[in-house]
Structure formats: C-alpha cells, structure tokens
C-alpha cells in the first residue's frame, strides 16, 4: 500500500488551509479570541462557543489513503464533513482540484457532491425503505441516470463487494458488516474520485472489520481512488493509511507516514497512542533495519580476509554483482586461505542463513531473527542487500523502551 501511495504522490488533489470551526450562535464575533490563542475551555467558559477545529492545514494527494485519526471529540468527524461542506467552516480555505469549494453556490455544491465525492458513514446511513440495489443506485438516481442503467451498475458493484444475490433484500435484513458493504458499494457506484469514510468500520466487530479493511485495500489497488478515512483506531490507521494525520481537541498534532508516527511520535499524546500498537504488525523490515555493514565485496579469499579485519564481528555477507550470496565466517575463510589463497569465494561453504525481504512485516520475521546466529541480511526485490536486522534491533523496536514510557506517564499525570 505504502508503495502505490508514494508513486502517485505527485499531484495535490485537496488542499485545506487555515481551517477553523467555532460552534455556537455567533462564531464570527468570537473568532478574534481564537486567534489570540485562547484554549478551547477558555473560549467555552467565556462565550459558550465550542472550538471544533483550530488552524487545520492539510494537503491530500491524488490516489492516496489519507487517514485522519483522533479520539472521540477530537474533531475528526467535523473535519471530514468540511470536505463536502456538510458543515461550513467559520474560516479557512478548502480547495479540491483547484476549485474553492467555499465559493460554490447551492446548485453547484449539489453537483459537486454528486460527482466529486461520495461518503461512507459510521452508522451506514442506508435508506431503510429502499431495497439494497436501490440503495446502491441512490447516488446515480439523484444524478438523474436512467433506472435501468443505474440498476445494472449497482448490481455490478454489489457483486464486487461480495453481495451478489442480496439485491432485493432490505437493509434491515442484513447484518452490520453486510450493510456497510452496501454503504461502500453505494459510494463506489457514483464513480466519484474522492471517497470520504467516516469511521466506516468502527461499528463492526473486529473480525468483520479486518475483513473490510482487506477488501478496501484490495479495491484500492484496482481503483486508485483518493480516500479520506476517519478512525479512532491507530492499528486501523497504520494498516490502511498511506499518510496519517492525528487530531487532538481540534488541533493537528502530527502528520506523516505511518512509520514516522510510530517511530517519531511528535508529542506525549501521540506517544501514548502509539504505545499500544502492535508494532510487529505495523512496521516492515525496511523501516527498522540498520545500514548494511560487514559486506564482503572481494573476489578472492585473501582480499576477503583483509576486508573482514575491519569488521566488528567474525563474519561477513558476501555480495557480488548478482547481489547477496551468503554468510562467510572468519573460520571458514582462514581454513580456505590455508588451502588456496587465490581461490574464488564462490567455491566456499556458506553458513546456512537465508536473507529476508525488506517489505516483510516484522511479525513474519521474528522467529528467523531470533534463531539466527548472526544479524539477518535484508534484500530488496532484485536481491541486492539493503540492510541487516539483528536480534537486538528487533528487541529494541518491539519492546517499549523505558525512558519514553516514563516521560509519557509523567505527561499524563500533569
């Protein structure tokens, strides 16, 4: 997922600048207070207005899954409703493909919602009096597409999400997971480029949720939509997000790629979040490996021994033009040196050690790393060695180091 996102990261699709939302009867009047930097609680006490969002700046690229994460009350659902103006901001700019959404008149806004964006809701928001297929076709029927055409398309999308045969059922007859599949099919059926997903999977039980996440990722590989995904679950965010933004009390705390957030949390709040994440499942080898050391690039044993003198350990990874070959110990080299110092390295007996892929999820390489006598060599798709992973590194990454935990705890107390 991360890969496809990075490749498409060239064009900005959505831009949000200086977005503020103050809830209340007369928000404009009290905006100066917000700009003075008063806190949410102070503003509520003084004016009875609730600060929903404060100075949000975002750019979302075409084709990526952008996850907005935060606990309840952090303003994430408010933020997503600004993209299609279900909520109007008090201040700020929302641009989609260069058009200022705030400048659209009512009719233009309707057209914009019909064609540019579609939305999936936490509580599904299906029409209970319409059959499943009519629900999926809803977006098209709003656009005025003929009944036959929209029905045909809806049937297709229902099949794509795995609900073929349920066309004539009513939403109340489906399970929660099935209802949300209908919600997803409805969103995809309009062919809108941007998909807004407001805690779309939060109401589902864990097993169904991870099934739906897989399905979304699978669909995204085919469709390359721009998806804005809201969640309160960091595991979910890390799993599907190309980039993640973390909100707290209406403010943006950190924005970045999943690994950034996991490995360099911006503050104690993010750190507290990150602590409970299953890192072994969230991180790939590439993000934690060390730069490759102990590389033997020589052709002959004599040269190889010379190189090894410079290494810390008593072994090295043999690399040639075709990439990683195997592990050689000093012992083997010494023994061979006594036989024939000019001999080719390839003829030697390698230690039994397979390389691991840099794209592998940490969880999958834990046993190999723990069992190996040496640091495991990491290779890329072409077989070139790009790094190495030691037991120690693995332990450091997976274990919570004590220092950070202490500071987080202190922050919590204060």
């Amino acid at each position, binding site marked *: 997922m991360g890969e496809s996102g990075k490749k498409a990261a060239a064009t900005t699709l959505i831009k949000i600048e200086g977005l503020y939302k103050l809830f209340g009867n007369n928000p404009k009047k009290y905006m100066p207070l917000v700009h003075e930097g008063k806190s949410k609680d102070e503003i509520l006490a003084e004016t009875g207005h609730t600060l929903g969002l404060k100075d949000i700046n975002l750019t979302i690229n075409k084709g990526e899954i952008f996850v907005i994460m935060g606990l309840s009350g952090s303003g994430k659902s408010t933020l997503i409703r600004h993209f*299609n103006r*279900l909520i109007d901001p008090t201040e700020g700019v929302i641009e989609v493909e260069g058009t200022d959404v705030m400048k659209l008149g009512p009719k233009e*806004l*309707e*057209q*914009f*919602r*019909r*064609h540019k*964006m*579609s*939305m999936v*809701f936490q*509580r*599904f*928001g*299906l*029409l*209970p*009096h*319409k059959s499943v297929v009519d629900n999926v076709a*809803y*977006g098209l029927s*709003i*656009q005025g597409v003929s009944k036959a055409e929209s029905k045909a398309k809806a049937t297709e999308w229902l099949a794509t999400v795995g609900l073929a045969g349920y066309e004539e*059922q*009513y*939403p*109340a*007859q*489906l*399970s*929660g997971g099935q*209802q949300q599949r209908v919600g997803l099919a*409805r969103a995809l059926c*309009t062919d809108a480029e941007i998909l*807004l997903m407001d805690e779309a999977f939060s109401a589902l039980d864990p097993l169904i949720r991870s099934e739906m996440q897989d399905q979304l990722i699978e669909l995204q590989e085919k469709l390359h939509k721009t998806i804005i995904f809201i969640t309160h679950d960091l595991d979910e965010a890390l799993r599907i997000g190309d980039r993640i933004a973390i909100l707290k009390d209406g403010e943006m705390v950190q924005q970045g790629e999943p690994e950034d957030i996991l490995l360099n949390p911006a503050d104690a709040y993010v750190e507290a979040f990150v602590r409970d994440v299953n890192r072994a499942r969230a991180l790939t080898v590439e993000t934690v490996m060390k730069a490759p050391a102990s590389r033997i690039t020589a052709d002959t044993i004599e040269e190889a021994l010379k190189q090894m003198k410079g290494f810390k350990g008593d072994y090295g990874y043999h690399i040639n033009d075709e990439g990683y070959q195997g592990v050689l110990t000093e012992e083997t080299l010494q023994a061979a040196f006594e036989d024939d110092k000019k001999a080719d390295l390839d003829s030697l007996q390698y230690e039994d050690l397979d390389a691991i892929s840099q794209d592998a999820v940490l969880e999958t390489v834990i046993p190999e790393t723990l069992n190996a006598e040496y640091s495991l060599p990491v290779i890329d798709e072409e077989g070139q060695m790009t790094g190495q992973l030691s037991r120690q590194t693995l332990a450091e990454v997976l274990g919570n180091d004590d220092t950070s935990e202490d500071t987080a705890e202190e922050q919590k107390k204060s």
Partner: protein
Amino acid sequence: MADASWLSEIPQLSRGSLRDIRKFLDTEYRDFSREYGEMIEGFFDPLLTFLVWFEKLLLATPWWLVIAIIAGLAYLSSRSWKLSLGVVISFFMIGYFGMWDNTMRTMSIILVCTFMAIALGVPIGIAMARSDRVQSVVTPLLDIMQTMPAFVYLIPVVMLLGIGKIPGVIAVIIYAIPPVIRLTNLGIRLVDKDVLEAATAYGASSMQRLVGVQLPLAMPTIMAGINQTIMMALSMVVIASMIGVKGLGQPVLKSITNQYFTLGLLNGLAIVALAIIFDRVSQAYAKRSQRYLGGMDNG
C-alpha cells in the same frame, strides 16, 4: 371601602362597555358576512358541487356494488379475508336495518373531509417541520382548533355560509385536521439524521430529500395522523347534523330530542361500524407499507 372592593371582587368591565364591545364585534361581523358572504360561498362552490356529486354517486350505485368495492379495497390494503368479510357483514346489517342512505351520506362527507384534511394538512405539516418559526405559529392555532368547542366556531361559519353541507365540512375539517398536521410535522422531524445526511452528501436537492427520504420515512407517523383524522371526523357527524348535514347524525339528534332509544343506538352502532372499518383498513395499510422494517433488526 369602595376603593378596596377589588380585593374581594375581581375588577370587571362595566356592563355598558361590555355590551358595546359585543355590539361592535357582532355588527362588524354581520356587515362583513353580508358583504363577503356570497363571494366566500362562491369560493366553496366547486367543493359543494363535488360533495353533492359524490353523495349522489354513492346513493345511485347499487348496494351490492358498493359493498363489493369497499370489501375489495379493504382486501387490497390489508390482504386479510377476515377484515373483508367483516366489511361485507357490517354493511349488509346497516342496510338491513334501514340505514343505508344515511350511511352513504355520512361516508361521502367523511371521505371528502379526510381528503381535504390530508390535502391541506400534509403541506402545512411539511412547512412546520422545515421551519421552527412556522411551527411556533401553527402549534397554538392547532391547540385552539382542538380545544375550542365546535359550537363556538360553528356560529361564525353558519353566519357566513348559512346552514348546509359546506359549513358542516368546514367544521369537520377544523376539528379533524390537527392530528394529520401534528403527526406529519413530528414524523418528518423524527427522520433519522444519519439517513438524511447521507442523502445530502450524495447531492440530493431539498425536494429530492423531501420526496425520496423524509416523506417515505415519516409515512408510518403520517398514516397514524390520517387514521386519527378519520376517527375525529366521524365523531363530528352528530354535531355537524345540527347545522343541516344529512347522514347518520340526524337520526341520532332526533332520538336525543324525542328519546328514541333504539333509533339512537342503531345509528350510533352504524357510526361505530364505519369507524372500526376505516380504522382497521387504514392501519393495515400503514403496517403493510412498512414491510421493509421486517426481518432481523440489526440497528
């Protein structure tokens, strides 16, 4: 002493000024009704023509055809043989006891009143649901309409339009329209906000939301309002008969003044039979229109 009399007795207008006020309002209204009475009557002429035509139609249709049509409608809306059979038996008994013509007259006026109440009440209810201001104006009006004794608003109506069908219809509508207005308003306001938001997010216009989401989802509540409206219209039949509306109410009125117990009871039972039939049929229809809520409820 005289100065402190307001302590023991409530301050009152003097008889003279009270009489002047009454006189003033009465003459003003009489002048108004003399001036505009005919114009307003003319305004209601199409309704009167329709009412007369409908009553004649019901009376002219052979009894077995009327029973067959009503039983057929009952079956279509409820899919229940029992209810349809009940309809056939009740109407046959009504005819057997000599109340057929009056029942047809009552039915025609009830159906027209209900139709008018729906045609007026649903749009008013929609307007109330869409604007809090409209709601705050209409709600006290509805309170007045429901609690003001019917005789009180019958007086100006009769002064204006005389005795006959139209004042009867107006009185029945005023009395019976509040439930359909109130429940249309309530039903639309209770529509699930999530569903409405979804419709908005897909770019539904205000009209598309009303017709495609709000009205269908409010329909069970609106149907309950219509049901109540029909019941209230029926309960006005006797009072309407006092201003010359023909039908089952007139024999009842006659039996009150002459103490004809059996005549009163029979006609009263005929009204009850009509009420039960209308109620069961409209409820069965409302229930059947919500079949989609059946099955498992996974919320």
